[in-house]
């Protein structure tokens, strides 16, 4: 029994999941109907559905970010890529004679995603070929990208009135939010591609020791290109969802600081920024913790001035509980307890 419990605590996912449950409990106390899910106008409706739907963009980016971080990299440009993809899609839809046409939206989405591939290749080029440190390399696109989005929208907020596009962000398919379905597909594809093949292990090996993996015959350069391109692609999907959700391309605010949320989700999920072993399931829990945190602030009615402090306290708690030093201290404490109990038994 205690062995099972010990293994559970040792799991990297234990503390993030505990934190998620604690947040759920806080919500439940503040608002008893928190877990209620009803059907309204033929779709699911409830706080948990909101958390899943609003957390979908963060999760999608965090999946890409997990793979980048596993190679000992980081991608700061995802927020800017969000803004660019939204700006591109909206300007194409606005420029077409028939914005409500499904084909127009398909073209807009395809072009936006294609551009993100180019942006991802650019990041990959800077990191893999020129050998620039990832934080600096992606900082370039983080700064320049938002400027590019501003140029595309000419500094305006572009509002589009296109039902098929809007559906990406706030529509439902068989009662389930489309954004959630998209996130699930991205997650499943990433998990299958990297965990059912050797790809995941190769990515980890690049993160642990690039030189050793190169000498062992792993094509580090190609892998780096792949993860940065995939990350930008994820960012573009998230950008389209965010833009569709607000039915407007806002070059200034779309995806602002989202890179930090995504990195945080990855870290809460137990993947180390030093690269190597990564956990996609952990990232999923991390993204849910972040979004639940946001919802908690609104549900509990924490005053806006205190919001940042509250969020920081929760994040600090998760990080503290996860840190190896804390874990060791806790384990030592438990051992002493067990020892004392054991002595007690022996003496009697």
């Amino acid at each position, binding site marked *: 029994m205690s062995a099972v419990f010990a293994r559970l605590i040792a799991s990297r996912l234990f503390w993030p999941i505990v934190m998620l449950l604690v947040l759920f409990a806080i919500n439940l106390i*503040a*608002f008893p*109907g*928190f877990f209620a899910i009803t059907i*309204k*106008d033929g779709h699911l*409706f*409830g*706080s948990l559905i*909101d958390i899943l739907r*609003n957390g979908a963009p963060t999760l999608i980016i965090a999946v890409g970010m997990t793979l980048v971080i596993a190679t000992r990299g980081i991608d700061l440009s995802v927020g800017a890529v969000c803004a660019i993809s939204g700006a591109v899609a909206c300007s194409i839809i606005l420029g077409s004679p028939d914005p409500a046409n499904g084909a127009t939206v398909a073209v807009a989405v395809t072009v936006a995603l294609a551009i993100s591939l180019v942006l991802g290749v650019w990041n990959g080029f800077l990191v893999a070929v020129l050998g620039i440190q990832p934080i600096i390399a992606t900082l370039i696109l983080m700064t320049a990208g938002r400027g590019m989005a*501003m140029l595309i929208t*000419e*500094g*305006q*907020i572009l*509002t589009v009135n296109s039902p098929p596009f809007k559906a990406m962000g*706030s529509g439902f398919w068989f009662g389930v939010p489309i954004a959630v379905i998209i996130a699930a597909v991205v997650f499943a594809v990433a998990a299958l591609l990297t965990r059912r093949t050797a790809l995941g292990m190769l990515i980890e090996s690049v993160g642990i020791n690039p030189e050793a993996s190169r000498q062992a015959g792993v094509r580090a350069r190609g892998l780096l290109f792949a993860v940065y391109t995939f990350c930008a692609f994820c960012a573009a999907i998230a950008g389209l969802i*965010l833009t569709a*959700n*607000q*039915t*407007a391309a*806002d070059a*200034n*605010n*779309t995806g602002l600081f989202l890179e930090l949320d995504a990195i945080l989700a990855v870290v809460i999920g137990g993947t180390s920024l030093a690269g190597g072993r990564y956990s996609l399931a952990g990232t999923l829990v991390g993204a849910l913790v972040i979004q639940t945190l*946001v*919802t908690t*602030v*609104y*549900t509990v*009615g924490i*005053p*806006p*001035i205190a*919001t940042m402090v509250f969020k920081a306290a929760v994040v600090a708690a998760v990080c503290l509980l996860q840190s190896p030093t804390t874990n060791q201290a806790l384990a030592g404490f438990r051992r002493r307890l067990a020892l004392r109990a054991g002595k007690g038994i022996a003496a009697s």
Partner: protein
Amino acid sequence: MKKLIGLAAAGALIVGLAGCASGGSGGGAAEGPVPLDELVVGFAQVGAESGWRTANTKDIQASFEEAGIELKFSDAQQKQENQIKAIRSYIQQGVDYIAFSPVVETGWDAVLNEAKAAGIPVVLTDRAVDSQDDSLYVSFLGSDFIEEGKKAGQWVLDEYADATEKVNIVQLEGTTGAAPAIDRAEGFAEVIAENENLEVIASQTGDFTRAGGKQVMEAMLKSNPDIDLVYAHNDDMGLGAIEAIEAAGLVPGEDIKIVTVDAVKDGMQALADGKINFIVECSPLLGKQLVDIITTLNEGGTVEKRIITEETTFTQEQAIEALPDRQY
């Protein structure tokens, strides 16, 4: 002599200083009316961070072109240091007047003293500076955010004048700490306090964005089932709230009434469609009033230290009328 008194009354110590400087190159202000086509005005803009700001820039540029006054324009990209550099370069070029929208409230004394020493009158637009020395600028032209909050509150007060039950109001605040967010909340709270049935049951920041307004509203709709009215500090958050209300199976404008501030085009469209009930205007179109201030000063007249932008309010009927001519 008349013009000297005029300028002194305008609250600027410029007169004496400009007199000293008049031997030099710049400082045309004290040398009698300059023909309009020889006037040079330097304008330092905040940036292009919102649709509102872009409309503001376009209007100022168009107004000066129409008046035939040369306008030197700079964009500070939301950075104070850029704006200070721009103002210094205007001083060196010896422009006749400087107008600017300060990015932040503090830290302007040094550069404004330089302008004062060079005898160049400064007009603030849209945003104020926080300085002990109000002789540093001639006039501040902009909206009164408290008044905007009061106008919104007044509509709510009138709308629910006969209410016998409690009216549940939720407030979507602007960016925490921003002057418009603080003042619009203050003005609103002051007016609705007259009727004790009106109560703000929840208030959260939506950061002036649509996505923010939508997410906050979604959560509020779940934890507070009987919301009667939403007061959003700008149109964008109101538009986000509309989406959240529709997703909850309610009708915005009927089941839950919405009052916002700004009157940008998308907001006006929603008002005309009946999804918003009332909008208080916060106009970016202050180019014409700025030209008036400068021509008045140029002719030696006096201007008020604080000039409120000409603004109105819109009901749904007025929005349908005004919408075709809306510029922004």
